[in-house]
């Protein structure tokens, strides 16, 4: 009798703890199936965002949309460095993201089985240009570019004037070089340098291995008529790349040896504190330089503009800024039909409604949609001006880069050796050309 009592008690205790354990697990599980339950009726949206700085704006917008339509929108943000791993995990779950980011060719290669062909959807009809979409071989639209960015050389017109020049004096590489070297020669007298430090520290080295390297890539691909990721590259314009790079590092605020540890933030601060005239970066710097009070630069927008990166290619006086995007939406083709419809409705609302377009203009600048609101950003105005003047847009050729992070790391490593450690430029060429072949073969 006693024995039985003890074992019953023990069993009771055990089953309680087991149930408690299950209860704990069930909590999160229930959450998931709850979403599922709702999605059967109306569909729901799960957006895996990759811009932490825009997270709050997305959350607010999602709430507004839910209030208006009753459709649930869940926004989760994974920073770009963790995006791929988060997406891989989330996609394996039963409540997978219905809307996610596919930024370049590499991402399309990885995720195309999960990308709905958007060709016949409303969102595509709202586009003002299809320039920024990611497409398949048979005209499938795997992802829609929902905003674009421009990069070039951000220029402080005020300082340039102090040095005795106007923006219009710079029309090609030769004139850029003349101005920069003249400023360097009078550096002590003027109190500022030509370029900010071209830091190759890993957090911002993409400015050069990605954005600057886009110049030789763009011209090579234009000559060869490349329309999809090539297996090999020739590096035909790498001498031009070397010319600009030499110009950057020999006319900067710091010596080349310091480049290994210089960060993008330092470079930005040098520009913000008017220690240099030129700062190679993109339209996203507008907020940091002009409006961000915590950064405290609060530059006058009228003093700023952006000029193209000139590298000595024939005909480059007709070049505009580098415009493109890595911000593209893909809709999960494996989601339920109701969820897909809800997602398509949501993104259409984002790019057509007043709330949506306002938020997009604030967070992302100009968006390639018919209902877009005009942003304040002077850098986009510069980009538009170049287009209006009939100059050609330098597209983001680097979106073809195979295994992009590793390829860039390779190039940066060689650039560092060249700039700071007496290495040979040949290794940069090798990193660029051989590295491309290596990464293409590896993927």
């Amino acid at each position: 009798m006693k024995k039985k009592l003890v074992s019953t008690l023990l069993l009771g205790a055990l089953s309680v703890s087991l149930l408690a354990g299950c209860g704990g697990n069930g909590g999160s599980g229930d959450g998931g199936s709850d979403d599922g339950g709702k999605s059967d009726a109306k569909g729901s949206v799960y957006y895996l965002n990759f811009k932490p700085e825009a997270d709050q704006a997305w959350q607010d917008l999602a709430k507004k949309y839910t209030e208006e339509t009753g459709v649930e929108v869940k926004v989760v943000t994974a920073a770009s460095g963790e995006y791929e791993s988060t997406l891989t995990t989330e996609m394996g779950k039963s409540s997978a993201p219905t809307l996610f980011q596919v930024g370049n060719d590499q991402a399309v290669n990885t995720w195309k089985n999960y990308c709905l062909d958007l060709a016949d959807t409303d969102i595509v009809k709202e586009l003002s240009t299809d320039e920024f979409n990611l497409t398949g071989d048979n005209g499938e639209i795997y992802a829609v570019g929902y905003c674009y960015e421009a990069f070039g050389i951000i220029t402080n017109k005020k300082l340039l004037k102090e040095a005795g020049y106007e923006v219009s004096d710079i029309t090609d590489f030769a004139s850029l070089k003349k101005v920069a070297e003249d400023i360097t020669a009078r550096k002590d007298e003027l109190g500022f340098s030509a370029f900010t430090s071209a830091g190759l520290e890993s957090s911002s080295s993409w400015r050069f291995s990605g954005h600057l390297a886009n110049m030789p890539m763009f011209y090579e691909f234009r000559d060869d008529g490349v329309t999809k990721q090539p297996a090999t590259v020739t590096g035909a314009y790498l001498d031009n790349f070397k010319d600009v790079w030499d110009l950057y590092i020999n006319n900067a605020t710091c010596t080349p040896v310091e480049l290994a540890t210089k960060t993008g933030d330092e470079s930005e601060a040098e520009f913000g504190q008017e220690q240099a005239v030129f700062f190679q970066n993109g339209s996203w710097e507008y907020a940091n330089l002009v409006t961000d009070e915590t950064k405290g630069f609060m530059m006058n927008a009228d003093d700023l503009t952006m000029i193209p990166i000139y590298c000595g290619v024939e005909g480059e006086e007709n070049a505009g800024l580098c415009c493109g995007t890595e911000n593209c939406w893909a809709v999960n083709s494996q989601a339920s039909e109701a969820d897909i419809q809800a997602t398509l409705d949501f993104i259409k609302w984002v790019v057509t409604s007043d709330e949506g377009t306002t938020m997009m203009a604030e967070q992302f600048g100009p968006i390639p949609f018919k209902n877009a609101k005009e942003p304040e950003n002077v850098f986009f105005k510069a980009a538009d001006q170049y287009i209006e003047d009939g100059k050609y847009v330098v597209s983001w050729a680097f979106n073809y880069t195979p295994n992009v992070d590793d390829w860039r790391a390779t190039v940066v490593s060689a650039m560092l050796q060249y700039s700071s450690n007496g290495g040979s430029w040949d290794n940069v060429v090798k990193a660029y050309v051989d590295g491309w072949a290596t990464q293409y073969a590896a993927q």
Partner: protein
Amino acid sequence: MKRRKKTSAVAVNSRLISRPIRRCFPIFMLPTFAAFCIGFIWPFAQGMYLSFCNFTIPKDAEFIGIGNYVKAFADAGFRYSFLYTAAFAVVSILAINIFAFTIAYLLTQNIKGANLFRTVFFMPNLIGGIVLGYIWSMIFDGILKKYGTFLLAETSYGFWGLIILMCWQQIGYMMIIYIAGLQSVPEDMMEAAKIDGANKWQTLIRITIPNVMSSITICIFLTLTNSFKLFDQNLALTGGMPVAFTDAGTTINTTEMLALNIYKTFYTSANTRGLAQAKAVMFFVLVAVLAIAQLRFTREKEVQQ
């Protein structure tokens, strides 16, 4: 004392308690066993299976046979990272254990403030690997700047940098284990050695080391597996850079260890996830075989007290 021990032993052995336990043990095992299956056995089996597959996410795996293993063996970067990891393991096992043992030995010699030293030496172990990696990269760069160079300039800088970092982090932990071992060396043996006229060196070699052999076993085991599994510190300190070029026109990351190589392979593209999985399985087998061999080898040298 003895009597009380006996009574408590009787209590546990009483048939009243022991029989239901014996009868119902599967139920008591169940929660842990289930957790072990869900958290370890199942993912492990799935991982094995996935290494024979092509997949973007595990749900949609497609069986392709041993192709991934063939590719893994043909991967020059993977072979290089294996050799690099092995070299790193040898150096770091020696360095960490020699330093840790020396410090532990000194701190058990009745030095003033020994407790303070122990705490301070142990502290680095409490900091996460990624943070450490970034902090040390700043320290190294700061020092190397004086000599007009930087951490990513040479492969050897990255190698020794990582050795220094790992020593700094792990010596304290191993030291604690060695201190525990040293404190349990029987006093009577030491006394006997003293009476027999053994000098300090002889006592260390003949008495102390054989007696702390079990600590040495566990410390070598930990440092061995830690070195092979090293990831965070590697990622944060050098990220595999700088790059070297092969004659075949390919590139190799010269400070990339096995785990980092696997991680990078996984996120290269949808076609490489199976390959990374195959590498990971090989990696597991390698670490397991090495660890078991080492345990066997050092266990033989242990003295039964």
